[in-house]
């Protein structure tokens, strides 16, 4: 479903990947692990077509990732970045930017499953914690119901209780291919496959 075939990438005179082969199957939950600078975020950016390999091919749904295919392949992807300091002031503002105000019911359900009151979507980001903001962004992105979910350090601002709630939510999602980069042991233990970079 997501295949890396002999992918190599150098960045600023440093080899990030050399002849990397990967095979992530549909519905699989994969955790990417490795120290800082080993290419976890880079790999997620390669899947999205924001970085391009120097050699080798990347296939998604058996389709080679090219400048033509990437635009419709992105429609299958959801992306939760590590840096959630997006220049928006409220969850509702982010929903408006994404034209998904009709998904408020689904977002409310995710928010509640993540231990938040649905009304927090109207709260100013400057008045809530980093963990609450992260859960709001995750709820909004999960409501998109995409088949591939890419997460970069999804637990970075969460406490143990919130991590458990997020894991429960992720487990309840059916037919989703989930690829995450995380340093969190509890998170990585729940993966179907752990790939060390």
């Amino acid at each position, binding site marked *: 479903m997501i295949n890396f075939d002999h992918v190599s990438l150098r960045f600023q005179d440093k080899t990030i990947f050399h002849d990397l082969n990967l095979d992530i199957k549909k519905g699989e939950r994969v955790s990417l692990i490795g120290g800082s600078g080993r290419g976890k975020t880079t790999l997620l950016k390669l899947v*999205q*077509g*924001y970085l*391009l390999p120097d050699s080798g091919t990347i296939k998604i749904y058996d389709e080679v990732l090219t*400048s*033509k295919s*990437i*635009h*419709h392949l*992105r*429609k299958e*992807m*959801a*992306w939760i*970045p590590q*840096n959630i*300091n*997006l*220049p*928006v002031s409220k969850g509702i503002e982010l929903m408006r*930017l*994404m*034209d998904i105000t009709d998904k408020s019911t689904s977002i409310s359900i995710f928010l509640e499953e993540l231990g938040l009151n649905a009304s927090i979507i109207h709260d100013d980001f400057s008045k809530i914690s980093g963990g609450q903001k992260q859960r709001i962004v995750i709820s909004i*992105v999960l409501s*998109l119901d*995409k088949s591939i979910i*890419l997460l970069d350090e999804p637990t970075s601002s969460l406490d143990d209780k919130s991590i458990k709630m997020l894991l429960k939510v992720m487990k309840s999602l059916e037919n989703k291919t989930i690829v995450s980069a995380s340093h969190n042991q509890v998170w990585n233990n729940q993966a179907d496959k752990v790939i060390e970079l």
Partner: protein
Amino acid sequence: MKEIVDIDIIDLAISFTILAIPIVFFLYFRVKIVRDVLISVIRMIIQLMLVAIYLEWIFKMNNAWVNSLWVLVMIFVGIFTTIGRVRLHWKEFIIPFFIAGLSSVAIIDSFFLGFVIKLDYVFDARYFIPITGMILGNAMNHNVVGLSTYFNGLSEKSELYYFLLTNTGNSRMALRPYIASAISQGLNPLIATMSVIGLISLPGMMTGQILGGSSPVIAIKYQIMIMLAIFVGCTLNLILSIIISNAFVFDSYGRFREEVLKK
């Protein structure tokens, strides 16, 4: 109405002595802009003297081709100034900015000169050149602010763009907040000016017309028209500049090409 009092060239020369006041302040507070001020004043004198010579000749000829050529020169000067001040590479932007400038001038001039003032000859130098000049001069200033906001936003706050691009799968939606921010930052000063016009500022065109012997009522009617022309012209020019540039500043994968900005 009385004839306007001409300024004697000696008196005009004497008027430069008043520059001593700001220069004394700059020197006292050690503001290192005296050299820049003197260069700007000398440039202003030379440019306006040349323009006076050109305009005398252009107004006498009053030829549609010559007048249009003059407007083209104004468009290109505006483009190069904008590209320089926003710190962009000219190769990617000269065509989009030219199309944007020409289209906005064509639309605004046809509407106001042809439809509102109902000139028999829309290329009449007396109307065509100063009105187009005011639109382009203002558009340049507001474009610099709007385009700087747009490109700096894409360069420095790119995470929102890529977040929206993947999650919505739609590049127009991903760019919308950046375009909205550019429009609001670019046009806010103009909206503020429009709201206090006549109260704390008397616009140059109106003042010039009154000094030139027009009645204040006619001058004000022209001022209202020119403010509308400037506002719509600036908006069109900025939006078209952004939309047309987008074809050159993103690669085929939708990634913003940082190299279009000068570091």
